[in-house]
């Protein structure tokens, strides 16, 4: 067991974890942060995407011990003071989700994409979301949502 200190969605946690524990399992099983989900076992789907010190990572591809001393933001910590993040709001407005399983990862990735490139072209959005799979929407409305969020941020 290894002791880690990690801040998740603004709350500090101190836990002993098995070194092999994946960050996503730590979040879900130890902290009850079930908003972040597991969709595959090859880090292809991106459903588990969270921010580690403000940058998107696939939390199935990060060990919990690697988060020691760092800050994690999940979908559950994105809204501030009851106000949805602009990307969350845009996903709702543009009907960019159906079953919603990919949505947490998709939103976290979209936020990261817009942090890096506040005015992306459609092509840049599509490439920026390439690591996140959605089976319901055909991506059409997800792209619209990211465009909408980008426009709203200006």
């Amino acid at each position, binding site marked *: 067991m290894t002791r880690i200190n990690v801040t998740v969605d603004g709350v500090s946690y101190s836990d002993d974890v098995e070194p092999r524990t994946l960050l996503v399992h730590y979040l879900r099983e130890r902290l009850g942060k079930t908003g972040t989900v597991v969709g595959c*076992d090859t880090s292809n789907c991106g459903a588990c995407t969270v921010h580690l010190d403000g940058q998107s990572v696939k939390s199935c591809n990060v060990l919990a011990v690697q988060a020691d001393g760092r800050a994690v933001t999940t979908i559950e910590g994105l809204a501030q003071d009851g106000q949805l993040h602009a990307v969350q709001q845009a996903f709702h407005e543009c*009907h960019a989700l159906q079953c919603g399983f990919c949505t947490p990862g998709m939103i976290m990735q979209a936020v990261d994409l817009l942090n890096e490139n506040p005015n992306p072209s459609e092509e840049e959005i599509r490439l920026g979301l390439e690591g996140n799979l959605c089976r319901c929407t*055909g991506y*059409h409305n997800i792209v619209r949502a990211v465009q909408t969020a980008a426009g709203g941020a200006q």
Partner: protein
Amino acid sequence: MTVTEAPAEGTREIGNARRRKEDQRLITGRTKWTDNIQLPGMLHLAMVRSPFAHAKITGIDTSAAKTAPNVVAVLTGKDVAEEQGVLANAWPITADQVAPVHPPIAVDRATFAGEVVAVVIARSAAEARDAAELVDVDYEELPAALDLKEAAEDKVLAHPDLGTNKSALWVFNSADAGTGGNVEEAIDEARQNGVLIEREYRQQRLIPAFMEPRSVVVDPTGEQLTMWSATQIPHILRYLLAATTGVPESKIRVIAPDVGGGFGGKLQSTPEEWITWLAARRTGKPVKYTETRSESLMAGHHGRDQWQRLTLAATKDGTVTGLKVDLLADLGSYVSLVGGGVPVLGAFMFNAIYKFPAYHFQVQTVLTNKTWTDAYRGAGRPEATFAIERLMDELADELGVDPLEIREKNWIKHEEFPFTTVAGLEYDSGNYEAATAKARELFGYDELRAEQKRRRESGDPVQLGIGVSTFTEMCGLAPSRVLGQLSYGAGGWEHASVRMLPTGKVEVVTGTSPHGQGHETAWSQIVADRLGVAFEDVEVLHGDTQISHKGLDSYGSRSLVVGGEALVRAADKVVEKAKPIAAHLLEASVDDIEFKDGTFGVRGTDKGVAIGELAAAAFTGHNLPDGVEPTLDSDATYDPVNFSYPHGTHLCAVEIDTETGGVKMRKYVAVDDVGVVVNPLIVEGQVHGGLVQGIAQALWEEAVHDEFGTLVSASFVDYLVPTAADTISFDLDHTSTPSTTNSLGTKGVGEAGTIASTPAVVNAVVDALRPWGVHDVRMPCTPERIWKAIQGGGKEPTEGEAMPHFDESAVADRSKGAVE
């Protein structure tokens, strides 16, 4: 899109692009997926799966696994053979269908690579998985039936004890059914004096690949055993658990919480559900099992997997005269819940929108040593639509006319509805001309044809292909009487309840079980209009058999057209129940009571009482007319009178780099007629997602097995679910001919995009390659296959088409020449 415009009186909500009620919890991570559930003392499962496609289990040593840390038990098929129940086939398509018994855990023989042969129960999922590695299984490998065509010849038996791989032969003949003529006569005539198009197409094996892996939790600690499952079918699941495991139905509660997509892939009763059920009953503890993605791809049911031998007869002027369809369908190693019924759902759709005077269909279902197949978005109808839309393009090419022209010549005209087809269905409404005209304009059809011509003439290395699909489909499953005639094991009705709460709020209980479709929003819109209450005041409950006690769940684009009609009828009953109470309170005759926009008024006066006040009056019961029940709550069970027939015209343009075989989609236009639209936002979303799944079949996805029967596309590295970077934005529009078979005039939309798009894309690919003499490229149309088709001058991938269709000796090895 704005939501502020006030629609016409009485339809304030229907047609409104309401943002979904479901979204809030999904965009903030406050979700209830099955895998999120944690119960006190919960145990976890890991499956031990066969690495062999076909093998005798000669021994299982579980001793090392049993002594691993925190392992509670290890169970093999032999240990539980008497108590594990079986997995049912609900649709034996013929009386003499051959079907192996399907045990949840294989007892003495593994029949596909991925089948469960033992299960480890441990205190954590990680410990269960660790211990599963320690289970030592001795196998004696058996020859495996893998290739569909070879399996159909019984060269190697998937189940030696059955003596054959042939499960069922199902036939429809329009001459026998009295719905049309003799197709052989039409073919003979065409062979001598007309045009005969003979083709063989492959429907590759696909994987539904819903994003939420299947998960199941069973809690045996209450008076009722409770199962949470990531399923499309909680009600059917409850029935099947009772029917096959000996637990009374009244002691079973099934809950489908938030479910992350299904696409038919969760229309199943699974070995994993039965094993979790068993483990919970054995241990007396709550038990959870969540599959990995690899397990999901390997052992969750697959879809499609057919060979289609097709003969279309026509006159020289392009009028179709007959269609003969001969299918081989791969069931995999068991006949699954709907199983052989999937190709039968396609049987009525090959004739599509065209006026064939003669039709013959047959399907031979075949057992193989591969993952079982079952419903995948469209289920039978994409296969049919692909075949006919490809054939219509081939006919157009043969005659040298535009593919839209040949369709128009043969389709049912709008004034001919209702129209009884050669397959015996009555299409209630449609307007193929209108949808096509709109699509043509939106697409810029003539301009793109001109560009195609220019590129061909200039020898541009990047060629343009234009693909057409003028599809219809049958959905809204289904009239119970028809299902009975087809030997399906259940009905096709749906149930709804409307509860009028004393505070004026409304609870709606539906028997449909949404997993992404937005029923909470759409059903609220329907009830808001019907009862004149606020959209926000309606709460839609579903997916828990203790709350929604009656239903047949969601699949086959049935929820709105069947479940929505049940809801309309339940709401109308509320109004009828309220009228005597309104009359009493208003001191008027019931005959004078009018209901409009949520208020009961007295004809010719300005007196009125709101429906919410009547709900409160019923609740207190203080002042009701004599003999009137103190409630407005109502329910309805609706059995549809017909299927639903959405249609549309889809046009696709692709650019093909003839030097590399690379395909780039340039434009995709879909004009769908789904009747009256309840929520345009949701409908568009259904079409977008459907399109991409159909396009993915055309271009990317295929479940591939190696020569040993191992699924080699068993991860998202190898199974190519498209990404945002692979796809484009779509151009959608609608025409609307209201359905005449339900009150709202709606038609199904869940599967339409998938059904329509596959042939549109392949037609576009082939269209681009026609100058090279190419008539077919097998799906998925990979750059390699396209490049080879170009290099082969059309010979290789189209080998099947040149062959005499009914010469069996020539058919035997036709697959060898096709481009793999």
